[in-house]
Protein backbone atom coordinates (compact mmCIF):
# COMPACT_ATOMS: atom_id res chain seq x y z
CA UNK A 1 0.00 0.00 0.00
CA UNK A 2 2.81 2.30 -0.76
CA UNK A 3 0.67 4.76 -2.69
CA UNK A 4 -1.10 5.63 0.48
CA UNK A 5 1.83 6.67 2.51
CA UNK A 6 4.13 8.22 -0.01
CA UNK A 7 1.55 10.09 -1.98
CA UNK A 8 1.28 13.77 -1.78
CA UNK A 9 -2.40 13.78 -2.53
CA UNK A 10 -4.93 11.25 -3.75
CA UNK A 11 -7.81 11.18 -6.17
CA UNK A 12 -11.23 10.51 -4.80
CA UNK A 13 -13.18 9.39 -7.85
CA UNK A 14 -13.14 5.84 -9.18
CA UNK A 15 -9.70 5.67 -10.70
CA UNK A 16 -8.17 3.00 -12.87
CA UNK A 17 -5.77 0.50 -11.33
CA UNK A 18 -2.90 2.38 -12.95
CA UNK A 19 -3.48 5.52 -10.97
CA UNK A 20 -3.84 3.53 -7.75
CA UNK A 21 -0.31 2.37 -7.77
CA UNK A 22 1.73 5.35 -7.00
CA UNK A 23 1.41 8.41 -9.11
CA UNK A 24 0.77 11.43 -7.05
CA UNK A 25 -2.75 12.67 -7.36
CA UNK A 26 -4.94 15.02 -5.41
CA UNK A 27 -7.65 13.84 -3.00
CA UNK A 28 -10.86 15.52 -4.00
CA UNK A 29 -14.44 15.40 -2.95
CA UNK A 30 -17.29 15.33 -5.43
CA UNK A 31 -17.42 11.75 -6.55
CA UNK A 32 -19.42 8.79 -5.45
CA UNK A 33 -16.60 6.42 -4.73
CA UNK A 34 -15.42 6.70 -1.15
CA UNK A 35 -11.73 6.41 -1.84
CA UNK A 36 -9.71 5.11 1.01
CA UNK A 37 -6.46 6.56 -0.15
CA UNK A 38 -4.72 8.62 2.47
CA UNK A 39 -3.53 11.97 1.32
CA UNK A 40 -0.61 13.07 3.37
CA UNK A 41 -0.04 16.71 2.69
CA UNK A 42 1.50 19.62 4.49
CA UNK A 43 4.70 19.69 6.44
CA UNK A 44 4.97 19.00 10.11
CA UNK A 45 5.69 22.05 12.21
CA UNK A 46 5.73 24.29 9.18
CA UNK A 47 2.70 25.99 7.78
CA UNK A 48 1.82 24.88 4.32
CA UNK A 49 -0.04 26.71 1.66
CA UNK A 50 -1.75 25.53 -1.46
CA UNK A 51 0.92 27.25 -3.46
CA UNK A 52 3.65 25.28 -1.76
CA UNK A 53 1.62 22.15 -2.36
CA UNK A 54 1.21 22.98 -6.00
CA UNK A 55 4.90 23.55 -6.32
CA UNK A 56 5.78 20.22 -4.73
CA UNK A 57 3.34 18.11 -6.66
CA UNK A 58 1.64 18.65 -9.96
CA UNK A 59 -1.93 18.96 -8.79
CA UNK A 60 -4.55 18.87 -11.50
CA UNK A 61 -7.11 21.46 -10.45
CA UNK A 62 -10.34 19.76 -11.41
CA UNK A 63 -13.52 21.83 -11.29
CA UNK A 64 -16.10 20.88 -8.69
CA UNK A 65 -13.61 18.88 -6.59
CA UNK A 66 -12.03 19.92 -3.28
CA UNK A 67 -9.23 18.34 -1.35
CA UNK A 68 -9.92 15.95 1.54
CA UNK A 69 -8.04 13.54 3.75
CA UNK A 70 -4.55 14.79 4.37
CA UNK A 71 -2.10 13.99 7.08
CA UNK A 72 0.24 16.23 9.05
CA UNK A 73 3.24 14.26 7.90
CA UNK A 74 5.12 15.28 4.77
CA UNK A 75 6.09 12.57 2.28
CA UNK A 76 9.58 11.94 3.60
CA UNK A 77 8.23 10.45 6.86
CA UNK A 78 8.48 6.67 6.97
CA UNK A 79 6.18 4.25 8.73
CA UNK A 80 7.30 2.88 12.10
CA UNK A 81 8.50 -0.70 12.28
CA UNK A 82 6.86 -2.43 15.25
CA UNK A 83 7.95 -5.97 14.48
CA UNK A 84 10.28 -7.20 17.21
CA UNK A 85 11.76 -9.91 14.98
CA UNK A 86 13.10 -7.26 12.61
CA UNK A 87 15.29 -5.80 15.31
CA UNK A 88 16.36 -9.10 16.77
CA UNK A 89 18.06 -10.42 13.68
CA UNK A 90 21.82 -10.64 14.32
CA UNK A 91 24.02 -8.53 12.10
CA UNK A 92 25.47 -11.46 10.21
CA UNK A 93 22.11 -12.64 8.88
CA UNK A 94 21.13 -9.37 7.26
CA UNK A 95 21.35 -9.02 3.53
CA UNK A 96 22.95 -5.97 1.92
CA UNK A 97 19.67 -4.17 1.34
CA UNK A 98 18.45 -4.79 4.85
CA UNK A 99 21.66 -3.39 6.27
CA UNK A 100 21.30 -0.42 4.03
CA UNK A 101 17.73 0.10 5.13
CA UNK A 102 18.64 -0.10 8.79
CA UNK A 103 21.35 2.51 8.28
CA UNK A 104 18.87 4.74 6.52
CA UNK A 105 16.33 4.46 9.31
CA UNK A 106 18.82 5.94 11.72
CA UNK A 107 18.72 9.25 9.94
CA UNK A 108 15.30 9.32 8.40
CA UNK A 109 12.26 10.86 9.98
CA UNK A 110 9.74 8.32 11.25
CA UNK A 111 6.08 8.86 12.05
CA UNK A 112 4.82 8.24 15.55
CA UNK A 113 3.19 4.84 15.94
CA UNK A 114 -0.53 5.04 16.78
CA UNK A 115 -1.42 4.23 20.38
CA UNK A 116 -3.33 1.09 19.49
CA UNK A 117 -0.47 -0.48 17.56
CA UNK A 118 1.71 -2.71 19.77
CA UNK A 119 4.52 -5.17 19.26
CA UNK A 120 2.49 -7.81 21.09
CA UNK A 121 2.42 -11.33 19.64
CA UNK A 122 -1.33 -11.45 20.19
CA UNK A 123 -2.07 -8.44 18.03
CA UNK A 124 -4.27 -8.81 15.01
CA UNK A 125 -4.83 -6.01 12.42
CA UNK A 126 -8.31 -7.29 11.50
CA UNK A 127 -9.40 -7.27 15.12
CA UNK A 128 -7.93 -3.78 15.60
CA UNK A 129 -9.84 -2.51 12.58
CA UNK A 130 -13.05 -4.06 13.88
CA UNK A 131 -12.52 -2.47 17.28
CA UNK A 132 -12.04 0.90 15.62
CA UNK A 133 -15.27 0.46 13.72
CA UNK A 134 -17.15 -0.50 16.86
CA UNK A 135 -15.79 2.51 18.74
CA UNK A 136 -18.15 5.38 19.43
CA UNK A 137 -17.09 8.82 20.54
CA UNK A 138 -13.46 7.80 20.83
CA UNK A 139 -14.14 5.35 23.65
CA UNK A 140 -11.54 2.79 22.66
CA UNK A 141 -11.45 1.22 26.13
CA UNK A 142 -15.12 0.30 25.90
CA UNK A 143 -14.85 -0.94 22.31
CA UNK A 144 -11.87 -3.13 23.16
CA UNK A 145 -13.54 -4.57 26.23
CA UNK A 146 -16.64 -5.39 24.17
CA UNK A 147 -14.44 -7.17 21.65
CA UNK A 148 -12.67 -9.24 24.31
CA UNK A 149 -16.00 -10.14 25.90
CA UNK A 150 -17.30 -11.19 22.48
CA UNK A 151 -14.31 -13.45 21.90
CA UNK A 152 -14.75 -14.92 25.36
CA UNK A 153 -18.47 -15.51 24.72
CA UNK A 154 -17.70 -17.24 21.41
CA UNK A 155 -15.13 -19.43 23.13
CA UNK A 156 -17.45 -20.42 25.96
CA UNK A 157 -20.30 -21.28 23.61
CA UNK A 158 -18.02 -23.46 21.54
CA UNK A 159 -16.66 -25.18 24.63
CA UNK A 160 -20.15 -25.98 25.80
CA UNK A 161 -20.99 -27.47 22.42
CA UNK A 162 -17.73 -29.39 22.52
CA UNK A 163 -18.46 -30.98 25.88
CA UNK A 164 -21.99 -31.87 24.84
CA UNK A 165 -20.92 -33.47 21.58
CA UNK A 166 -19.81 -37.00 20.82
CA UNK A 167 -16.25 -37.92 19.94
CA UNK A 168 -16.66 -37.66 16.14
CA UNK A 169 -18.32 -34.29 16.35
CA UNK A 170 -15.68 -32.99 18.72
CA UNK A 171 -13.13 -33.10 15.95
CA UNK A 172 -15.25 -30.84 13.77
CA UNK A 173 -16.05 -28.19 16.39
CA UNK A 174 -13.75 -25.18 16.10
CA UNK A 175 -12.94 -23.61 19.47
CA UNK A 176 -10.49 -20.89 18.54
CA UNK A 177 -12.40 -17.57 18.64
CA UNK A 178 -9.89 -15.92 16.32
CA UNK A 179 -10.30 -18.45 13.51
CA UNK A 180 -14.06 -18.21 13.91
CA UNK A 181 -13.90 -14.42 13.68
CA UNK A 182 -11.70 -14.41 10.60
CA UNK A 183 -13.66 -17.12 8.85
CA UNK A 184 -16.99 -15.44 9.65
CA UNK A 185 -15.83 -12.13 8.18
CA UNK A 186 -14.43 -13.89 5.15
CA UNK A 187 -17.76 -15.63 4.62
CA UNK A 188 -19.56 -12.28 4.80
CA UNK A 189 -17.42 -10.54 2.17
CA UNK A 190 -19.29 -9.88 -1.08
CA UNK A 191 -17.51 -10.80 -4.31
CA UNK A 192 -19.15 -8.16 -6.46
CA UNK A 193 -20.64 -4.82 -5.53
CA UNK A 194 -22.90 -2.12 -6.94
CA UNK A 195 -21.78 1.40 -7.74
CA UNK A 196 -24.09 4.27 -8.75
CA UNK A 197 -22.90 5.69 -12.10
CA UNK A 198 -24.37 8.80 -13.65
CA UNK A 199 -25.50 8.36 -17.25
CA UNK A 200 -27.92 10.60 -19.05
CA UNK A 201 -29.17 12.30 -15.93
CA UNK A 202 -29.93 9.06 -14.05
CA UNK A 203 -27.95 7.05 -11.57
CA UNK A 204 -27.68 3.39 -12.51
CA UNK A 205 -26.54 0.68 -10.07
CA UNK A 206 -23.72 -0.95 -11.97
CA UNK A 207 -22.15 -4.25 -10.85
CA UNK A 208 -18.46 -3.76 -10.27
CA UNK A 209 -15.63 -5.93 -8.84
CA UNK A 210 -14.68 -4.66 -5.40
CA UNK A 211 -11.13 -4.28 -4.15
CA UNK A 212 -10.15 -6.39 -1.15
CA UNK A 213 -10.28 -3.64 1.41
CA UNK A 214 -13.75 -2.51 0.31
CA UNK A 215 -14.98 -6.06 0.74
CA UNK A 216 -13.50 -6.36 4.22
CA UNK A 217 -15.00 -3.01 5.16
CA UNK A 218 -18.45 -4.03 3.91
CA UNK A 219 -18.35 -7.32 5.79
CA UNK A 220 -17.49 -5.58 9.07
CA UNK A 221 -19.99 -2.79 8.44
CA UNK A 222 -22.84 -5.17 7.78
CA UNK A 223 -21.98 -7.22 10.85
CA UNK A 224 -22.01 -4.16 13.09
CA UNK A 225 -25.18 -2.67 11.57
CA UNK A 226 -26.97 -5.96 12.01
CA UNK A 227 -25.98 -6.19 15.65
CA UNK A 228 -26.70 -2.59 16.50
CA UNK A 229 -30.00 -2.05 14.76
CA UNK A 230 -31.81 -5.30 14.14
CA UNK A 231 -31.58 -6.84 17.59
CA UNK A 232 -33.58 -6.35 20.76
CA UNK A 233 -32.63 -3.18 22.62
CA UNK A 234 -31.83 -4.85 25.93
CA UNK A 235 -29.36 -7.50 24.68
CA UNK A 236 -25.70 -6.68 25.18
CA UNK A 237 -23.28 -6.26 22.30
CA UNK A 238 -20.99 -9.23 23.12
CA UNK A 239 -23.99 -11.52 23.22
CA UNK A 240 -25.38 -10.27 19.91
CA UNK A 241 -22.01 -10.20 18.18
CA UNK A 242 -20.99 -13.67 19.30
CA UNK A 243 -24.28 -15.07 18.04
CA UNK A 244 -23.89 -13.34 14.67
CA UNK A 245 -20.27 -14.41 14.29
CA UNK A 246 -21.11 -18.04 14.96
CA UNK A 247 -23.96 -17.95 12.47
CA UNK A 248 -21.78 -16.33 9.82
CA UNK A 249 -19.10 -18.93 10.50
CA UNK A 250 -21.62 -21.60 9.55
CA UNK A 251 -22.75 -19.59 6.48
CA UNK A 252 -26.15 -18.83 7.93
CA UNK A 253 -27.74 -15.76 9.40
CA UNK A 254 -28.80 -12.29 8.30
CA UNK A 255 -25.37 -10.99 7.30
CA UNK A 256 -24.82 -13.83 4.85
CA UNK A 257 -28.32 -13.18 3.54
CA UNK A 258 -27.38 -9.55 2.92
CA UNK A 259 -24.32 -10.66 1.00
CA UNK A 260 -26.46 -12.97 -1.13
CA UNK A 261 -28.93 -10.12 -1.73
CA UNK A 262 -26.09 -7.96 -2.98
CA UNK A 263 -24.97 -10.73 -5.32
CA UNK A 264 -28.52 -11.19 -6.63
CA UNK A 265 -28.91 -7.47 -7.31
CA UNK A 266 -25.62 -7.48 -9.18
CA UNK A 267 -26.77 -10.48 -11.20
CA UNK A 268 -30.07 -8.74 -11.96
CA UNK A 269 -28.33 -5.59 -13.17
CA UNK A 270 -25.69 -7.32 -15.22
CA UNK A 271 -26.95 -5.68 -18.40
CA UNK A 272 -25.57 -2.40 -17.09
CA UNK A 273 -22.08 -3.81 -16.66
CA UNK A 274 -20.79 -2.06 -19.77
CA UNK A 275 -21.30 1.31 -18.04
CA UNK A 276 -18.14 0.57 -16.14
CA UNK A 277 -15.08 2.05 -17.80
CA UNK A 278 -12.27 0.77 -15.57
Amino acid at each position, binding site marked *: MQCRTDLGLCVAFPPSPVTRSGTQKAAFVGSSWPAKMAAPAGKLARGWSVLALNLRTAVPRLPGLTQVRWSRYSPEYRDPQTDKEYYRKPLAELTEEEKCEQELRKTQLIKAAPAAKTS*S*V*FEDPVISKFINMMMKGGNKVLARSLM*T*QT*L*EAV*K*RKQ*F*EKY*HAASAEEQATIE*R*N*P*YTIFHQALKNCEPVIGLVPILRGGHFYQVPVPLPARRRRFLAMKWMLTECREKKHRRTLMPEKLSHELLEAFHNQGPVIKKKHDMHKMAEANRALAHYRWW
Partner: protein
Amino acid sequence: TMLNRVTRLVPRARQLDPGHFLHGGPQGPQGLAVHLDDQVPDETPRAGSRPSEDDPVKTFNEACLMVRRPALELLRYLDGTNFAHQAVRYVLYGEKGTGKTLSLCHVIHFCAKRDWLVVHVPDAHQWVKSCRGLLRSAYSRQRFDQPVEASSWLKSFKTANERFLSQIKIQETYMWNKRESTEKGRPLGEVVEQGLTRVKNATDAVGIVLKELKSQSCSGAFRLLVAVDGANALWGRTTLKREDKSLMAPEELALVHSLRKMVRNDWHGGAVVLALSQTGSLFTPRMACLPQELLGKEGFDALDPFVPILVSNYSPKEFESCVQYYLENSWLQHEKAHTEEGKKELLFLSDANPGQLERLCAYL
Protein backbone atom coordinates in the same frame (compact mmCIF):
# COMPACT_ATOMS: atom_id res chain seq x y z
CA THR B 1 -14.21 -11.84 44.65
CA MET B 2 -13.95 -14.98 42.67
CA LEU B 3 -16.08 -17.10 44.88
CA ASN B 4 -17.91 -19.09 42.33
CA ARG B 5 -14.87 -20.74 40.97
CA VAL B 6 -13.83 -23.74 42.82
CA THR B 7 -11.67 -24.51 39.88
CA ARG B 8 -8.14 -23.50 39.44
CA LEU B 9 -5.48 -24.76 37.31
CA VAL B 10 -2.92 -27.34 37.71
CA PRO B 11 -1.32 -29.66 35.24
CA ARG B 12 -0.57 -33.35 35.65
CA ALA B 13 -4.05 -34.00 36.94
CA ARG B 14 -3.50 -36.86 39.31
CA GLN B 15 -6.00 -38.06 41.84
CA LEU B 16 -4.73 -37.19 45.24
CA ASP B 17 -5.93 -38.79 48.42
CA PRO B 18 -6.41 -36.29 51.21
CA GLY B 19 -3.74 -37.42 53.58
CA HIS B 20 -1.03 -37.54 50.98
CA PHE B 21 0.32 -34.05 50.67
CA LEU B 22 0.32 -33.38 54.37
CA HIS B 23 3.00 -35.92 55.08
CA GLY B 24 5.32 -34.17 52.73
CA GLY B 25 4.94 -30.96 54.66
CA PRO B 26 4.29 -27.61 53.04
CA GLN B 27 6.78 -27.90 50.25
CA GLY B 28 5.14 -25.10 48.45
CA PRO B 29 3.06 -25.28 45.32
CA GLN B 30 3.55 -28.78 44.13
CA GLY B 31 1.29 -28.29 41.19
CA LEU B 32 -0.93 -31.23 41.93
CA ALA B 33 -4.60 -31.28 41.18
CA VAL B 34 -7.10 -32.02 43.86
CA HIS B 35 -10.14 -33.22 42.02
CA LEU B 36 -13.29 -32.44 43.87
CA ASP B 37 -15.15 -35.68 43.53
CA ASP B 38 -18.81 -36.34 43.70
CA GLN B 39 -19.10 -36.82 47.42
CA VAL B 40 -18.48 -33.21 48.06
CA PRO B 41 -20.44 -31.27 45.48
CA ASP B 42 -22.74 -29.33 47.73
CA GLU B 43 -20.22 -28.40 50.32
CA THR B 44 -18.21 -26.44 47.85
CA PRO B 45 -19.22 -22.80 47.87
CA ARG B 46 -21.36 -21.84 44.95
CA ALA B 47 -22.44 -18.31 45.65
CA GLY B 48 -20.32 -15.54 44.34
CA SER B 49 -19.98 -12.42 42.36
CA ARG B 50 -19.37 -14.05 39.00
CA PRO B 51 -22.16 -14.44 36.49
CA SER B 52 -23.25 -18.01 36.18
CA GLU B 53 -22.24 -18.48 32.56
CA ASP B 54 -18.63 -17.88 33.53
CA ASP B 55 -18.67 -20.94 35.72
CA PRO B 56 -15.45 -22.80 34.99
CA VAL B 57 -17.03 -26.04 36.13
CA LYS B 58 -19.26 -25.87 33.10
CA THR B 59 -16.45 -24.82 30.83
CA PHE B 60 -13.94 -27.44 31.81
CA ASN B 61 -16.36 -30.14 32.94
CA GLU B 62 -14.31 -30.53 36.10
CA ALA B 63 -13.41 -28.58 39.21
CA CYS B 64 -9.76 -28.23 40.09
CA LEU B 65 -7.82 -26.27 42.65
CA MET B 66 -4.19 -25.38 42.66
CA VAL B 67 -2.43 -26.41 45.85
CA ARG B 68 -0.56 -23.31 46.96
CA ARG B 69 1.56 -22.37 49.91
CA PRO B 70 -0.93 -20.29 51.96
CA ALA B 71 -3.57 -23.00 51.81
CA LEU B 72 -1.03 -25.69 52.69
CA GLU B 73 0.16 -23.68 55.66
CA LEU B 74 -3.40 -23.25 56.90
CA LEU B 75 -4.14 -26.92 56.48
CA ARG B 76 -1.06 -27.83 58.45
CA TYR B 77 -2.17 -25.57 61.29
CA LEU B 78 -5.68 -26.95 61.19
CA ASP B 79 -4.41 -30.46 61.38
CA GLY B 80 -2.39 -29.64 64.44
CA THR B 81 -5.11 -27.74 66.31
CA ASN B 82 -5.56 -28.55 69.91
CA PHE B 83 -9.31 -28.72 70.41
CA ALA B 84 -9.08 -28.12 74.11
CA HIS B 85 -7.70 -24.64 73.55
CA GLN B 86 -9.72 -21.70 72.34
CA ALA B 87 -10.52 -21.42 68.63
CA VAL B 88 -7.68 -19.85 66.68
CA ARG B 89 -8.59 -17.21 64.13
CA TYR B 90 -6.80 -17.23 60.79
CA VAL B 91 -7.08 -14.25 58.48
CA LEU B 92 -6.28 -14.55 54.76
CA TYR B 93 -5.28 -11.20 53.31
CA GLY B 94 -3.58 -9.99 50.16
CA GLU B 95 -3.88 -7.93 46.99
CA LYS B 96 -6.87 -8.15 44.74
CA GLY B 97 -7.09 -11.31 42.68
CA THR B 98 -4.37 -13.30 44.44
CA GLY B 99 -6.56 -16.21 45.51
CA LYS B 100 -7.81 -15.59 49.04
CA THR B 101 -11.29 -16.86 48.32
CA LEU B 102 -10.07 -19.98 46.58
CA SER B 103 -7.67 -20.76 49.42
CA LEU B 104 -10.68 -20.49 51.71
CA CYS B 105 -12.57 -22.89 49.46
CA HIS B 106 -9.66 -25.30 49.57
CA VAL B 107 -9.68 -25.23 53.38
CA ILE B 108 -13.44 -25.74 53.49
CA HIS B 109 -13.17 -28.70 51.16
CA PHE B 110 -10.41 -30.20 53.29
CA CYS B 111 -12.41 -29.83 56.48
CA ALA B 112 -15.57 -31.12 54.88
CA LYS B 113 -13.71 -34.20 53.77
CA ARG B 114 -12.72 -34.79 57.36
CA ASP B 115 -16.29 -34.45 58.55
CA TRP B 116 -16.05 -31.11 60.23
CA LEU B 117 -19.20 -29.04 60.48
CA VAL B 118 -18.63 -26.06 58.19
CA VAL B 119 -20.41 -22.76 58.76
CA HIS B 120 -19.65 -20.94 55.52
CA VAL B 121 -20.66 -17.39 54.69
CA PRO B 122 -19.78 -16.97 51.00
CA ASP B 123 -19.81 -13.17 50.99
CA ALA B 124 -20.51 -11.12 54.08
CA HIS B 125 -20.67 -7.99 51.91
CA GLN B 126 -24.02 -9.17 50.55
CA TRP B 127 -25.46 -8.80 54.03
CA VAL B 128 -24.58 -5.12 54.43
CA LYS B 129 -25.57 -3.68 51.09
CA SER B 130 -28.60 -3.54 48.81
CA CYS B 131 -30.93 -5.62 50.98
CA ARG B 132 -34.63 -5.39 50.37
CA GLY B 133 -37.19 -6.18 52.98
CA LEU B 134 -35.54 -5.13 56.21
CA LEU B 135 -37.77 -5.81 59.20
CA ARG B 136 -37.56 -4.73 62.78
CA SER B 137 -36.44 -7.74 64.77
CA ALA B 138 -39.07 -9.22 67.05
CA TYR B 139 -36.42 -10.51 69.43
CA SER B 140 -34.70 -7.20 70.08
CA ARG B 141 -36.23 -3.85 69.21
CA GLN B 142 -32.97 -2.14 68.20
CA ARG B 143 -31.90 -4.67 65.58
CA PHE B 144 -33.07 -5.37 62.04
CA ASP B 145 -33.84 -8.65 60.34
CA GLN B 146 -32.96 -9.62 56.80
CA PRO B 147 -35.34 -12.38 55.80
CA VAL B 148 -34.09 -12.89 52.23
CA GLU B 149 -30.41 -13.26 53.03
CA ALA B 150 -31.08 -15.33 56.12
CA SER B 151 -33.30 -17.81 54.30
CA SER B 152 -30.86 -18.26 51.42
CA TRP B 153 -28.06 -18.88 53.90
CA LEU B 154 -30.18 -21.41 55.77
CA LYS B 155 -30.86 -23.25 52.51
CA SER B 156 -27.19 -23.55 51.66
CA PHE B 157 -26.35 -24.52 55.26
CA LYS B 158 -28.94 -27.26 55.10
CA THR B 159 -27.61 -28.76 51.87
CA ALA B 160 -24.04 -28.58 53.14
CA ASN B 161 -24.51 -30.17 56.56
CA GLU B 162 -27.47 -32.53 56.18
CA ARG B 163 -26.23 -35.24 58.43
CA PHE B 164 -25.37 -33.00 61.35
CA LEU B 165 -28.82 -31.48 61.45
CA SER B 166 -30.39 -34.63 62.75
CA GLN B 167 -27.55 -35.47 65.14
CA ILE B 168 -27.32 -32.21 67.03
CA LYS B 169 -30.04 -31.57 69.58
CA ILE B 170 -30.88 -28.09 70.82
CA GLN B 171 -30.51 -27.39 74.49
CA GLU B 172 -33.26 -24.85 75.09
CA THR B 173 -36.86 -24.27 74.16
CA TYR B 174 -37.47 -21.50 71.65
CA MET B 175 -40.85 -19.81 71.27
CA TRP B 176 -41.38 -18.47 67.79
CA ASN B 177 -44.81 -17.03 68.48
CA LYS B 178 -47.88 -17.88 70.57
CA ARG B 179 -48.58 -21.05 68.65
CA GLU B 180 -45.24 -22.36 67.50
CA SER B 181 -42.24 -23.38 69.50
CA THR B 182 -39.36 -25.79 69.33
CA GLU B 183 -38.72 -27.80 72.48
CA LYS B 184 -35.48 -28.73 74.07
CA GLY B 185 -34.02 -31.94 72.69
CA ARG B 186 -35.42 -31.60 69.17
CA PRO B 187 -32.88 -31.89 66.33
CA LEU B 188 -31.39 -28.74 64.89
CA GLY B 189 -33.00 -29.54 61.55
CA GLU B 190 -36.34 -28.41 62.93
CA VAL B 191 -35.01 -24.94 63.70
CA VAL B 192 -33.69 -24.71 60.15
CA GLU B 193 -37.05 -25.88 58.76
CA GLN B 194 -38.85 -23.31 60.82
CA GLY B 195 -36.58 -20.60 59.49
CA LEU B 196 -37.13 -21.73 55.91
CA THR B 197 -40.89 -22.02 56.13
CA ARG B 198 -41.54 -18.91 58.20
CA VAL B 199 -39.33 -16.40 56.45
CA LYS B 200 -40.02 -13.75 59.07
CA ASN B 201 -38.24 -15.87 61.65
CA ALA B 202 -35.32 -16.76 59.39
CA THR B 203 -32.85 -14.34 60.96
CA ASP B 204 -33.72 -15.53 64.45
CA ALA B 205 -33.32 -19.12 63.26
CA VAL B 206 -29.83 -18.27 62.01
CA GLY B 207 -28.99 -16.71 65.35
CA ILE B 208 -30.23 -19.78 67.21
CA VAL B 209 -28.30 -22.16 64.95
CA LEU B 210 -25.07 -20.26 65.48
CA LYS B 211 -25.57 -20.06 69.22
CA GLU B 212 -26.29 -23.76 69.54
CA LEU B 213 -23.34 -24.76 67.40
CA LYS B 214 -21.02 -22.59 69.43
CA SER B 215 -22.14 -23.94 72.77
CA GLN B 216 -22.13 -27.55 71.62
CA SER B 217 -18.79 -27.57 69.84
CA CYS B 218 -17.11 -27.50 73.25
CA SER B 219 -18.64 -30.89 73.99
CA GLY B 220 -16.54 -32.54 71.31
CA ALA B 221 -19.27 -34.26 69.34
CA PHE B 222 -18.10 -32.53 66.18
CA ARG B 223 -15.45 -30.07 64.98
CA LEU B 224 -16.65 -26.67 63.93
CA LEU B 225 -15.13 -24.56 61.17
CA VAL B 226 -16.39 -21.02 60.75
CA ALA B 227 -15.43 -19.70 57.31
CA VAL B 228 -16.36 -16.15 56.38
CA ASP B 229 -15.40 -14.44 53.14
CA GLY B 230 -15.36 -10.66 53.04
CA ALA B 231 -15.06 -10.57 56.81
CA ASN B 232 -14.25 -6.87 56.79
CA ALA B 233 -17.93 -6.24 56.08
CA LEU B 234 -18.77 -7.16 59.66
CA TRP B 235 -16.91 -4.16 61.07
CA GLY B 236 -17.22 -1.67 58.25
CA ARG B 237 -20.16 0.50 57.31
CA THR B 238 -23.41 -0.35 55.62
CA THR B 239 -25.44 1.36 52.90
CA LEU B 240 -28.72 0.24 54.40
CA LYS B 241 -31.11 2.88 55.66
CA ARG B 242 -33.54 2.93 58.54
CA GLU B 243 -37.10 4.20 58.15
CA ASP B 244 -35.96 7.76 58.77
CA LYS B 245 -33.36 7.47 55.95
CA SER B 246 -30.34 7.55 58.22
CA LEU B 247 -27.55 5.06 57.61
CA MET B 248 -27.29 2.01 59.84
CA ALA B 249 -24.26 0.71 61.61
CA PRO B 250 -23.54 -3.00 61.10
CA GLU B 251 -24.25 -3.80 64.77
CA GLU B 252 -27.90 -3.03 64.16
CA LEU B 253 -28.23 -5.95 61.78
CA ALA B 254 -29.11 -9.14 63.61
CA LEU B 255 -27.20 -11.36 61.16
CA VAL B 256 -24.01 -9.35 61.56
CA HIS B 257 -24.46 -9.34 65.34
CA SER B 258 -24.74 -13.12 65.56
CA LEU B 259 -21.83 -13.63 63.19
CA ARG B 260 -19.64 -11.32 65.25
CA LYS B 261 -20.42 -13.39 68.32
CA MET B 262 -19.47 -16.51 66.38
CA VAL B 263 -16.12 -15.12 65.37
CA ARG B 264 -15.09 -14.31 68.96
CA ASN B 265 -12.70 -16.83 70.39
CA ASP B 266 -14.57 -17.67 73.57
CA TRP B 267 -15.28 -21.24 72.46
CA HIS B 268 -13.15 -24.26 71.71
CA GLY B 269 -13.42 -27.33 69.55
CA GLY B 270 -12.77 -25.83 66.13
CA ALA B 271 -11.27 -22.96 64.17
CA VAL B 272 -12.23 -19.73 62.48
CA VAL B 273 -10.91 -18.85 59.01
CA LEU B 274 -11.65 -15.40 57.62
CA ALA B 275 -10.79 -13.96 54.23
CA LEU B 276 -10.71 -10.21 53.77
CA SER B 277 -11.81 -8.62 50.54
CA GLN B 278 -11.68 -5.08 49.27
CA THR B 279 -13.65 -5.72 46.09
CA GLY B 280 -17.12 -5.82 47.59
CA SER B 281 -16.41 -3.62 50.57
CA LEU B 282 -17.99 -0.23 51.18
CA PHE B 283 -16.16 3.00 51.84
CA THR B 284 -12.66 1.48 51.73
CA PRO B 285 -9.93 2.78 49.41
CA ARG B 286 -9.14 0.59 46.43
CA MET B 287 -5.50 -0.03 47.33
CA ALA B 288 -6.29 -1.21 50.85
CA CYS B 289 -5.36 -4.83 51.40
CA LEU B 290 -3.83 -5.08 54.88
CA PRO B 291 -5.95 -6.27 57.83
CA GLN B 292 -5.46 -3.01 59.71
CA GLU B 293 -6.77 -0.96 56.78
CA LEU B 294 -9.70 -3.18 55.88
CA LEU B 295 -10.94 -4.14 59.33
CA GLY B 296 -10.52 -0.72 60.92
CA LYS B 297 -9.65 -0.21 64.54
CA GLU B 298 -12.85 -1.81 65.82
CA GLY B 299 -12.51 -4.94 63.73
CA PHE B 300 -8.83 -5.35 64.43
CA ASP B 301 -9.39 -5.09 68.17
CA ALA B 302 -12.27 -7.55 68.00
CA LEU B 303 -10.14 -10.07 66.15
CA ASP B 304 -7.00 -9.22 67.99
CA PRO B 305 -4.98 -12.33 68.55
CA PHE B 306 -5.21 -13.81 65.04
CA VAL B 307 -2.84 -15.55 62.64
CA PRO B 308 -2.43 -13.49 59.46
CA ILE B 309 -1.72 -15.44 56.29
CA LEU B 310 -0.56 -13.52 53.25
CA VAL B 311 -1.77 -14.74 49.86
CA SER B 312 0.46 -13.39 47.12
CA ASN B 313 0.78 -13.60 43.35
CA TYR B 314 1.97 -16.70 41.56
CA SER B 315 5.59 -17.72 41.85
CA PRO B 316 7.28 -18.59 38.52
CA LYS B 317 6.60 -22.30 39.04
CA GLU B 318 2.95 -21.69 39.88
CA PHE B 319 2.57 -19.45 36.85
CA GLU B 320 4.10 -22.08 34.65
CA SER B 321 1.80 -24.76 36.00
CA CYS B 322 -1.19 -22.46 35.55
CA VAL B 323 -0.38 -21.85 31.91
CA GLN B 324 0.28 -25.55 31.42
CA TYR B 325 -3.15 -26.40 32.79
CA TYR B 326 -4.82 -23.95 30.45
CA LEU B 327 -2.89 -25.37 27.52
CA GLU B 328 -3.79 -28.93 28.43
CA ASN B 329 -7.46 -28.08 28.65
CA SER B 330 -7.08 -26.15 25.38
CA TRP B 331 -8.50 -23.09 27.06
CA LEU B 332 -5.70 -21.00 25.56
CA GLN B 333 -6.65 -21.25 21.90
CA HIS B 334 -4.50 -18.54 20.35
CA GLU B 335 -1.70 -20.14 18.36
CA LYS B 336 0.91 -17.72 19.67
CA ALA B 337 0.05 -18.60 23.27
CA HIS B 338 1.89 -21.90 22.95
CA THR B 339 5.19 -20.19 22.20
CA GLU B 340 7.76 -18.91 24.66
CA GLU B 341 7.13 -15.37 23.48
CA GLY B 342 3.44 -15.71 24.23
CA LYS B 343 4.08 -17.01 27.73
CA LYS B 344 6.52 -14.22 28.48
CA GLU B 345 3.96 -11.72 27.31
CA LEU B 346 1.25 -13.29 29.50
CA LEU B 347 3.57 -13.03 32.47
CA PHE B 348 4.28 -9.41 31.72
CA LEU B 349 0.66 -8.43 31.17
CA SER B 350 -0.72 -10.22 34.22
CA ASP B 351 2.27 -9.67 36.56
CA ALA B 352 1.65 -13.24 37.81
CA ASN B 353 -1.64 -12.12 39.36
CA PRO B 354 -4.01 -15.10 39.23
CA GLY B 355 -7.14 -13.01 38.64
CA GLN B 356 -5.60 -10.94 35.90
CA LEU B 357 -4.15 -14.01 34.19
CA GLU B 358 -7.53 -15.64 34.15
CA ARG B 359 -9.18 -12.60 32.61
CA LEU B 360 -6.43 -12.47 29.96
CA CYS B 361 -6.64 -16.12 29.05
CA ALA B 362 -10.43 -15.90 28.78
CA TYR B 363 -10.25 -14.19 25.41
CA LEU B 364 -6.95 -15.56 24.13
